């Protein structure tokens, strides 16, 4: 905690440089836990199908975005997919897990929706929309039940 004084005309103004620090811990819930545990333990990607409109979501979710249907049927989707869009960050932020990540929306084979993750193991200029990619999982001992248990997607 520190403060800086600035003077404006005849007025003194103090600027406090401080923080708000409240740790947060979010439950992934029944569905999210199942998806993350399958990634961690089996390198398996679980999606879910909407019983009403048949749309397959990966990652699995409780409620259909299209029709408000309540999803209940797990479906395994492929670890291979197609890049729908991507971006290369030029500067890193404090929130990012790696320096200058390349983010992409990837539609995995068997899913009707995109999965947001990172690309790696590829020259940036060689990335294109429509490119085929495959998930690269972390080593078993490094997987902790997180979306980051997938290190990134690399070109097929």
């Amino acid at each position, binding site marked *: 905690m520190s403060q800086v004084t600035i003077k404006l005309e005849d007025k003194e103004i103090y600027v406090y440089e*401080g923080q708000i620090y409240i740790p947060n811990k979010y439950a992934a819930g029944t569905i999210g836990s199942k998806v993350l545990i399958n990634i961690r333990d089996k390198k398996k990607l679980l999606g879910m199908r909407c019983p009403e409109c048949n749309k397959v979501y990966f990652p699995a979710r409780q409620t259909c975005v299209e029709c408000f249907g309540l999803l209940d049927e797990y479906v395994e989707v492929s670890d291979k997919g197609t890049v729908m869009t991507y971006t290369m960050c030029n500067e890193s932020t404090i929130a990012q897990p790696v320096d200058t990540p390349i983010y992409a929306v990837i539609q995995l084979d068997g899913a009707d929706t995109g999965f947001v993750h990172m690309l790696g193991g590829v020259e940036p200029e060689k990335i294109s929309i429509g490119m085929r990619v495959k998930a690269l999982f972390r080593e078993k001992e490094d997987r902790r039940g997180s979306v980051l248990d997938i290190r990134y997607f690399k070109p097929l």
Partner: protein
Amino acid sequence: MAEKKKKSEPEYIFVEFNTPRKYRWSTGPYVGKMYHEARMNKKLYANQCPKCKKMLWEPQVVCGRCKVETGWKWKELPQRGTVMQYTFIVYPMWDPHYGEKFANPLPNAMIEMDDGTVIRHFLEETDEKKLKEGMRVEAVWKENEEDRGEGTADIKFFRTIDK
């Protein structure tokens, strides 16, 4: 992070985020003036509402009660007052601004200063039995100027006095 399984309960995953968010809060000119007087002169200054003539603590551009602009009329407040209401935290709480737990116990009071202005602050007295409504207190400042500059926090606490 996974939480260890209890008997017959499925394993649940949790995702944790622990990065503090940084801010640059400004006092603005009104609270800034109060800060400056406290830091330089160990004095309590507040601005006065032109309508109800009450001292505004916190100093502000508009008097909330009268809903009129206050202007820039300042007065020094007395540093002695009477405890109107008090309490003390028994259960130690997390302070999100310092990222640590508050001191414990932490007697906290609304103090009616001798001109009628009400200030919230901490009390020196931590013995529950010695706290009472109506007790007389006065401000105790942080000694070194370089430790001051945090507005009302430049007052360490209010200590009990005889009258």
